[in-house]
């Protein structure tokens, strides 16, 4: 099955998205920005609809809109606890815009709605692979550059602020990273299930990892394993790949939950 070029593309796209999401999801949980990840996924729908309206590729529309929303959310909510309000306000505005785009495009748009909502990893083209590679590497390089102050500001924001760590700048950069990651992940699991790759790998990492590096490593491994196994199952049993990724990651999380419960008792 791996001899088919569409399977090779799916595998490469899946691996790139899994590695980036595995790293980013740890910070999503530490910074309690799960709502932002979910909201950016929903906003991607508006981005894709806007791109369709203007005749751009959907990834470009998602990237532009998500980045704009990320900057606004980052500026409004530089403290970890203030994020929800900022995200809620921006999400409402963008979803309203999305509803209008959908209204304008109700005839042409409906056909591609399913692939945007649930993703279609088997339809990833070589050009998209290059886009994913460039975006993924950019995210990882920027994360490496800011990881030390980002970890400090995420774990202990009040003390980090007292040490002159630039919380607002970090907040904007992190939301931009999240925006790019969400746009990438949407190609694989779609806007509705993007939450899965941005929450559960990090949650699995935190069930077992005791240090930040350990947690990130476990998170990446669980995301990669889920994507590879899901592609295999999806091909063999003709099931949707995004469904398989979701079920495998959820199963991994619940197994970890049960294991921790058994160890504790």
């Amino acid at each position, binding site marked *: 099955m791996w001899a088919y070029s569409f399977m090779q593309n799916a595998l490469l796209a899946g691996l790139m998205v899994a590695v980036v999401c595995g790293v980013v999801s740890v910070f999503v*949980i*530490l*910074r*309690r920005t799960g709502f932002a990840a979910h909201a950016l996924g929903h906003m991607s729908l508006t981005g894709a609809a806007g791109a369709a309206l203007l005749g751009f590729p959907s990834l470009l529309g998602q990237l532009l809109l998500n980045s704009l929303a990320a900057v606004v959310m980052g500026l409004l909510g530089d403290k*970890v*606890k203030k994020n929800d309000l900022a995200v809620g306000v921006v999400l409402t505005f963008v979803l309203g815009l999305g509803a209008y785009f959908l209204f304008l495009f109700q005839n042409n748009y409906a056909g591609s709605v399913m692939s945007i909502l649930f993703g279609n990893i088997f339809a990833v083209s070589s050009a998209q692979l290059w886009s994913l590679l460039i975006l993924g590497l950019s995210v990882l390089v920027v994360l*490496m*550059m*800011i*990881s*030390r*102050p980002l*970890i*400090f*500001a*995420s*774990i*202990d*924001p*009040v*003390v*980090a*602020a*007292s*040490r*002159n*760590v630039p919380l607002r700048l970090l907040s904007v950069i992190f939301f931009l990273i999240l925006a790019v990651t969400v746009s990438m992940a949407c190609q694989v699991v779609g806007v509705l299930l993007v939450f899965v790759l941005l929450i559960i790998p990090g949650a699995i*990492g*935190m*069930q*077992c*990892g*005791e*240090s*930040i590096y350990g*947690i990130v490593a476990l998170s990446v491994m669980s995301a990669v394993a889920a994507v590879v196994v899901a592609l295999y199952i999806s091909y063999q049993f003709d099931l949707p790949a995004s469904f398989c990724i979701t079920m495998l990651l959820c199963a991994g999380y619940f197994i970890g939950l049960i294991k921790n419960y058994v160890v504790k008792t």
Partner: protein
Amino acid sequence: MINCNNLILGYDKAITPAFNLAINDNQWIGIIGKNGAGKSTFLKTMLGNLAVISGSIKILGQAPGKINQLISYIPQEREINLADRMSGISLILSSAVGWRFGLPWYSHKLRRRVAELIELVGAGDYAHQPFNTLSGGQKKRIYLAQALVNQPRLLLLDEPLADLDPHAKQHFIAALQKIHQHQKLGLLIISHDMHEIACHLDAFIHFSSTGVHFCETIECVKEDSYVGV
């Protein structure tokens, strides 16, 4: 170490009258006063988080906010977002030069220093345990070690004894005492239990409605009944 000249503190409006203060290097100072008298505002002003209403303040010869890498602040309320299994050691390590960009790298030298600090504050028995499972008193001693990891010249503690039972208070004070013996640094501590640590301090600053006064002994502020001398 700290010089205040006709300083007036406040948020948008003044909450203290103008005052002058001169605190020497490595002095350990207790800050006393009723709620809302300007004690925490004083610490936040020193960090540059709040602007002065008027007058000036210099810390180690610099304006507020310029040398925060040399000041460690333990706030009264804080938000810690550690994962369930992460320990106090992870919290301390994450703070080590946490303002520098790049990947965090925890060298042997840093780990040795952290181990020494953990011993100094008496947290050796539980520093490896998940932080979220620790008691309030145990967490506060981890915060002390965290505050020392960057070798500060000045330590600012805002109500560190609040919410601690008598036993935990004694452990915390013992840790402070050891720090006083082994580390060269200045300390400003706000506390409503000042009588319990007064014997370890060099002087006091009293924030009251009539002004801000520097006192060599705690007896000079005993007109405030709640100080409990």
